[in-house]
């Protein structure tokens, strides 16, 4: 005997209230709605109007909107409580600053990559090496971070040119950690040309990961990444194979840098990664810093062309997955986590507030401290806005509580930035105060004229359309979100 009829639970016209709701028109007949924490529902424009003006009679749609905390029945408190819990969960990482510490152990490099964003010097000049004393002070600052996880990334130049310091920092960090009990991770960003057995053994014994550059097939890679012998690609590939054999496939990852020459060759680049047994590719844009801006590094391409490149690369990756090659597009996987879960992976270029200082700190070879890698590159171009101090005379408080950090951080909170606050994709996006300072003259920029905004909106709408129309891709994003 039914006591409560199903019809009794239906919502009558004007029987619901809107919860914080943002929307974006994807196509002529398709709109995506997002709630306060980025959960999304696809509707038609007419359905959106009906939900907004209280006339919608589609009970199944109204039920889905209730489940996604986009509408509620007057008097309910649970939806707001759950939204608050989810938002708190997403922002929880803020208490665990700073996870990534970049040590620029030398500016020396034997490559002369055309797009290099680092002021590299020829391999002979050792006054561009970090000293042990500088490294020790930098480590002391790093261990002041509340984060229970510290990742120490060795960069340069070419860090293997100062391998003794890499070894020293690793040992010293582990020694210092005895009093802290943090979870430590180490990674060397290297072109692998100088990899030898001693370095491999060190990585194996100490649990150090490696990250290298593979821009694509040989001609594309060597076209930009110049070195004596013109064999950068061969060296990198040989290095990758050696690492995979000695340390296993999970110890080495690769990044690509996009140049003008890359933009029509997305599928080839993906295939080059697949051939090397690399399971993840990060399709990145080129950023306008360092030599890339000054030189002819191919920085002059527009956002639309890059988006076409990204879409082609993503298509090739989906195709590989259909052929049972489990390739991941890392940028999409970061966004997948933000779209489909409450956790924020903390990728410093896609967080709000931005990852400057609180996500990452950079210790240059001379002890200067920067709020991010891009901040350091800007300094090489003469703009020291993002220099936060020096390890030899700045305390942790001097660095983390400085105006130099707090002002750009404040300007990087999307929830209170014009256009970002009402953007459907605010939960997925981030902020780039360094980019906006460099291109627009202030930390927030004007999003209508921001290449950062245009590029991210392009990626979000591309991913959402694919998720809406292709169940296989939707499942792939779910897998990548885990």
């Amino acid at each position, binding site marked *: 005997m*039914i*006591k*409560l*009829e*199903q019809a*009794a*639970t*239906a*919502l009558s016209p004007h029987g619901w209230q809107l919860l914080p709701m943002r929307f974006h028109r994807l196509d002529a007949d398709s709109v995506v709605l997002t709630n306060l*924490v980025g*959960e999304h529902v696809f509707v038609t424009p007419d359905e959106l109007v009906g939900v907004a003006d209280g006339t919608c009679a589609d*009970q199944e749609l109204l*039920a*889905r909107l*209730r*489940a996604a905390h986009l509408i509620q*029945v007057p008097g*309910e408190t*649970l939806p707001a*409580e*759950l939204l608050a*819990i*989810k938002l708190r969960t997403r922002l929880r990482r803020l208490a665990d600053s700073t996870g990534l510490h970049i040590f620029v152990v030398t500016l020396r490099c034997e490559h002369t990559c055309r797009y290099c964003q680092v002021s590299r010097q020829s391999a002979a000049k050792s006054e561009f090496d970090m000293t042990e004393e500088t490294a020790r002070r930098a480590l002391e600052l790093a261990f002041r971070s509340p984060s229970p996880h510290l990742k120490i990334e060795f960069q340069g130049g070419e860090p293997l040119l100062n391998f003794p310091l890499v070894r020293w920092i690793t040992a010293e960090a582990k020694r210092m950690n005895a009093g802290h009990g943090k979870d430590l991770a180490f990674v060397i960003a290297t072109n692998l040309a100088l990899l030898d057995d001693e370095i491999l053994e060190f990585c194996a014994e100490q649990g150090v990961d490696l990250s290298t550059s593979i821009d694509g097939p040989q001609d594309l890679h060597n076209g930009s990444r110049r070195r004596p012998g013109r064999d950068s690609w061969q060296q990198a590939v040989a290095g990758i194979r050696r690492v995979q054999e000695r340390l296993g496939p999970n110890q080495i990852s690769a990044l690509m840098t996009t140049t003008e020459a890359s933009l029509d060759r997305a599928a080839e680049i993906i295939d080059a990664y697949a051939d090397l047994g690399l399971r993840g590719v990060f399709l990145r844009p080129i950023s306008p810093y360092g030599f890339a801006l000054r030189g002819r590094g191919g920085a002059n391409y527009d956002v639309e062309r890059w988006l076409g490149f990204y879409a082609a690369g993503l298509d090739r990756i989906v195709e590989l997955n259909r052929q049972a090659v489990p390739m991941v597009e890392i940028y999409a996987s970061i966004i997948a986590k933000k779209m*489909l*879960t*409450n956790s924020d992976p903390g990728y410093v270029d896609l967080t709000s507030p931005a990852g400057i200082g609180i996500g990452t700190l950079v210790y240059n070879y001379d002890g200067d401290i920067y709020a991010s890698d891009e901040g350091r590159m800007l300094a090489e171009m003469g703009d020291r806005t993002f220099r936060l101090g020096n390890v030899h005379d700045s305390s942790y408080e001097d660095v983390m509580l400085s105006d130099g950090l707090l002002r750009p951080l404040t300007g990087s909170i999307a929830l209170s930035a014009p256009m970002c606050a009402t953007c459907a994709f605010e939960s997925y996006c981030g902020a780039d105060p360094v980019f906006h300072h460099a291109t627009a003259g202030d930390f927030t920029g004007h999003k209508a004229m921001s290449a950062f905004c245009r590029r991210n909106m392009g990626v979000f709408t591309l991913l959402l359309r694919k998720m809406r129309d292709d169940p296989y891709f939707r499942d792939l994003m779910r897998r990548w979100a885990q």
Partner: protein
Amino acid sequence: MLKLMGRAGGPAWPVADDVWRVCLPADSDSDRDGAGDEGPAKSLACLVRAGQPAPSGYGLYLTTDPETGTLAVPGTPRRATRGAPGPVLKLGPELAHLSPGDIIHVPAGARRVTVLWKNSAGHNALLLTEQCDNYCLMCSQPPKERDDTWLFDRARKVISLLPAGTRSLSLTGGEPALHAGALIGLLEHCQQVAPELSIHLLSNGRRSADPAYARRYAAVGLADIMAGIPVYAPEPGLHDFIVQAPGAFNETIHGILNLASLGQAVEIRVVVQRHTVPVLAGLATFIVRNLPFVAQSR
């Protein structure tokens, strides 16, 4: 399939309504339940096989041996079986499966025996009440209005008699938390006499929307208890319809959140039926986003 209720022949000596654990004569030394030499082992029922002598000292003797005669007509006095030093229950053949460690309920009059605990089964559940404040469309145990709080007392006795080595216990209903005091008392009893048990409590979670009740539940301090709480839809409309109770969804989710914030283990249970099938994917999404802390019973 084992029968859990069966006929019994009334013994000559009166047997009060009680709960008994079955044991064999050979177990007498390790199984006396503290009786010592002082008299019949309290709450132990000795299972006597054909031809075996029945040792003295037990409160009840059980036999399925046909040689000791046919079942007595209920109500007629019967002489004690030759050699049995106490009241003898002759069990019907459907209860021939009784073994040591099983726990039975013998009501006054002793005409029927209910098996409450089957030691050889991997899982045993104790029914605590048939009352419920949900009225799920698909309920296999529709609620009854009558006062059945005596079931808590019976469960308490069963828990006191659990055989050594018992690892897990299920508590079910109806809705056990409708009798909050009795349930908390029962859980405290578990914590006292069997703290190593893994307990699975089936409940709709609605009572835990009251923070004071949730705190009492957590304060019992059981190391291994999990609440199995059904959620049938990702929003109130359909869930409340399926459980036939307005407001149930909001109370249930509030209850789950309260338990989780007190560090209590919660499992979400879903029944696959006509109304839940179309929303299973949406329900899974809801659980991932809103209840990501839930666990599963092992």
